[in-house]
């Protein structure tokens, strides 16, 4: 038991030193700035007055071609700060192929 506690404590203390550096970026078009934890690029620089991103952030990249509605449906919506609301009915929008939006 003591060994387990010591091991858990050691792991908790070491965790403070871990650098979670697997970061993905994208450029935000409207103000030419880098956005962290979004997009698919491993680096991004907006210090020159415009946004420049590149590299592959690999497995950390969010899938950008998935359609949420094909995997999940809203079963219910609960109000957690008061009386519950009735479950909503899910109406799924059709996904039609479209040319990429300019912004």
């Amino acid at each position, binding site marked *: 038991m*003591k060994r387990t*506690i010591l091991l858990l*404590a050691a792991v*908790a*203390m*070491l*965790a*403070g*030193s871990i650098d979670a550096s697997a970061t993905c*970026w994208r*450029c*935000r*078009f*409207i103000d030419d*700035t*880098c956005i962290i*934890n979004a*997009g698919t*690029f491993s*680096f991004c*620089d907006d210090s*020159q*007055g*415009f946004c*420049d*991103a*590149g*590299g*592959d952030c690999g497995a950390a990249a969010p899938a*950008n071609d*998935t*359609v*949420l*509605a*094909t*995997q*999940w*449906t*809203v*079963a219910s*919506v*609960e*109000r*957690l*700060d008061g009386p519950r*609301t009735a479950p*909503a009915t*899910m*109406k799924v*929008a*059709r*996904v*039609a*192929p*479209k*040319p*990429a*939006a*300019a*912004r």
Partner: protein
Amino acid sequence: MLTLFSLLFAAKLAATGSIDATVRGTNEPVDVALLRRDDAGAWHEQATRHLPASERHARFRDLAAGIYQVRVRGAAPFEQTAAKVAVGAGEARSAVIDVDPVELFGRATLGDIPLGHAAILLKQRQFQWQAALEADENGLFHARLWQHGAFNCYVRSPALATTYGDEVNVDGPSPFRWELRLPDRRLVGVVRDRVTGAPIAGASLHLQTKSAAHERNAVAHADANGRFDVTAMTPGVVAIVASADRYLDALPAPFTIAEADRLHEIAIDMEPGVVVPVAIRDAAGQPLAGADVLTATGGSLRGRAVTGGDGVARVTLPANASATMYVVPHEGSFAAIRVADAAHAQRRITLPRPSSTLRIVTRTTAGKALPNVSLLMRVDGELIPPAVAEAMQALQDLTLQTDDRGEAVLRRLPPGAYEFWPYSSQAEADAIVDTAGSLLAPIVVNVKTGENTIAVNFRAR
């Protein structure tokens, strides 16, 4: 034993850390700077120590837990090197910063033509230090770097309409030879008035070139004849937004510039608009300065104006078509006003009080967090298209997406009837925008003044 350990553990969490830095590889006087990384990945300088030639150690104490870099600077601009140090709560860390000089010899060309007197800026990608140099009349340049690694490179020259961006991995033994060859691929065109065909002088062009490997943005301007000529284009899908006074922004269809292309020509036709002064007031009736007023048609942003000290924005609207004005002040709250045409536009808009917060939790029916769910929002019947949502994120830090824990907190909202559609991809969002007018939203919430929290439970299909 457990109590004692808990006390020790608590004491460690409360304690501050330190870094002992040792500089190797140079006998020159140096400055040793300590920088800390913030949550957005940016480095901020915390302290600097000057080390004379006789001293090679620097100590930084009283450090909060975090990610730090120790940066060593010599006398010349490229004499910089750094090392990253992760400091846990109460940890004493040591770091050795090696000066590992590399002689960089390069030649800048545009195609095969030397790019004389080009200004070249190198930015170390991991540690973000940067330094600039100028090529000679033959495009030749030299620098003595103190650190290897991947660098972003930016080239400016009178021969280029925009700043050219590239990257270089400086590795291997010294000297490192680099042929900085800018592609001789051009995008040329003209910006015209859609009605009269007249050229629009000085129009601003925001260019975005996207490929799997890169996203590069640049700004160019049309000349007095409405013409532009952008050299050194990289291959990819190019999206352009053209802006000019008294015109609605033009968004020509994105096009592809292939590796083999040398010249791509395009004509951009801009729709003249009508400039309407619109007075923006806060909930107390006071003029609101510095508020953005965005014009959108068909879900696309077509203009942007900012209120002056008198709270008035000069908004460009379509002369004979409908549009929506979105008022987005930095202070929070917003308004969406539909306009039948410029002649009937509302000239005075009073914003509701930003008195509500909405916390949205996305989870599975099993209670597990469903992270990174994007949300398309409709407020009191007005859809907020993704382009406007992005502007709201930029201006108000309002992010319509749940985080890794499946939570989104939308602060400084006006009360009202809010509806949301969850989505993952841009194509999915576009499809929802196209059909939202005839569909019920799956998430409906009446946001009241104060704190509001909802949980959205998702079932797997």
